[in-house]
């Protein structure tokens, strides 16, 4: 069969995924978005995508797979809610608010920073700073050289370091 009709993840399968992973996914969204309501939205979108576009079989590590989907949902949300940088303009990143009380500003700045990063750099940054992997482990996970990981990580930290309290490490 060359293609398949719409197959959705329903009922007990979705419930099982939710019970095991929803809390962890929500935490990841919270770390990225800094807002409970946004994290709720991203969690909902994640499970909507999982339900609507289930894989033929669950991957070996559903958590890593769900994190990838959730991160993409978060980035999409940041793009929708952040201030757009006009194409062709290299607008400088505005300084983040001290104390980060203004979530909208924070999301806008993070969104602008995220948009400047390619997918590989984002993945490397999140594996290291949210997943806690060493640079060697990131290199193994991404099959990139240790040198490339180091360079991309530096770029990631320059652009988004303030938003993940990297100064505390």
């Amino acid at each position, binding site marked *: *069969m*060359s293609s*398949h009709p719409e197959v959705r993840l329903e009922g007990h399968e979705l419930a099982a995924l939710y019970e095991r992973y929803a*809390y*962890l996914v929500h935490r990841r969204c919270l770390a990225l978005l800094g807002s409970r309501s946004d994290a709720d939205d991203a969690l909902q979108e994640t499970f909507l*995508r999982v339900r609507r576009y289930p894989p033929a079989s669950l991957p070996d590590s559903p*958590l890593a797979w769900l994190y990838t989907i959730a991160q993409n949902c978060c980035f999409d949300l940041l793009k929708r809610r952040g201030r757009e940088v006009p194409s062709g303009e290299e607008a400088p990143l505005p300084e983040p608010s001290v104390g980060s009380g203004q979530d909208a500003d924070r999301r806008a700045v993070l969104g602008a920073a995220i948009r400047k990063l390619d997918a590989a750099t984002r993945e490397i940054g999140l594996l290291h700073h949210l997943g*806690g992997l060493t640079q060697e*482990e990131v290199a193994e996970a991404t099959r990139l050289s240790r040198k490339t990981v180091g360079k991309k990580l530096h770029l990631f930290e320059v652009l988004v370091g303030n938003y993940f309290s990297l100064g505390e490490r």
Partner: protein
Amino acid sequence: MEDLVPDRPQRGPDCPSTLTLEALFARERVSPETAAHAQGCTECSGYLRRLQTGQGAFLAARPFERFERQLDRAEAAKGQRRFGLWAKVLALPAVALCALAVVQVAHPRGEDAVRIKGEALHVYFERAGAAPEPVTPDLLLRAGDRLRFAYAAPSPGWITILDKDGTGQVSVFYPFHAQGGAPIQAGSADPLPGTIALDDARGPEWLVAVFSPQPIDVSSLKTQLARTPAGGTPSLRCGGCRISALRIQKP
């Protein structure tokens, strides 16, 4: 800044990554050494306990049944927006839509013909999170893109939609499980139910719509379509049928 996420553990030289601890917490497979370490390590076991506490509170506040209802509402709202988009697209004049080119009409003499004027099969594709867009001839699509079909027939009849992919395999795209095609009513431009996800077979792919006044011998059509020379325009014989074909490309 308010700490919205429980503290991650301080990672010692023998400690696994936070990601690995979280996988362990989710009852995924980890090495026995990792599991043993996590039990005996103050930082790692403390982190797992914090996750346990947090998850308990989370699930108590957000039970799955309620979450599922929220998903249903969100999906219904998206469906209305998406259907609204479909409706807007379908409302465009047929000439403005790159619909199918009629490549063959079979009207054998003496047989009832489907007297259809102005019917058109419209094909749309959608990707996750994006609005549906019309499929134009030789449009580049990819595995995972979902196709949806719509039609407007001024006369009642039967319809089936076949697919011949780049490997030569023939499938029935619509109706998926029924033999004989699906009945169609006159005057409706609603999307046909269901979508089809394209697989990763590369090359030119033909979507072939067959209208008939009677139930369709789908098996015969599949056999004919499979015998069409590779790269050639589909050629089908079907008494009283009207056939439309659209080619897409999957590089």
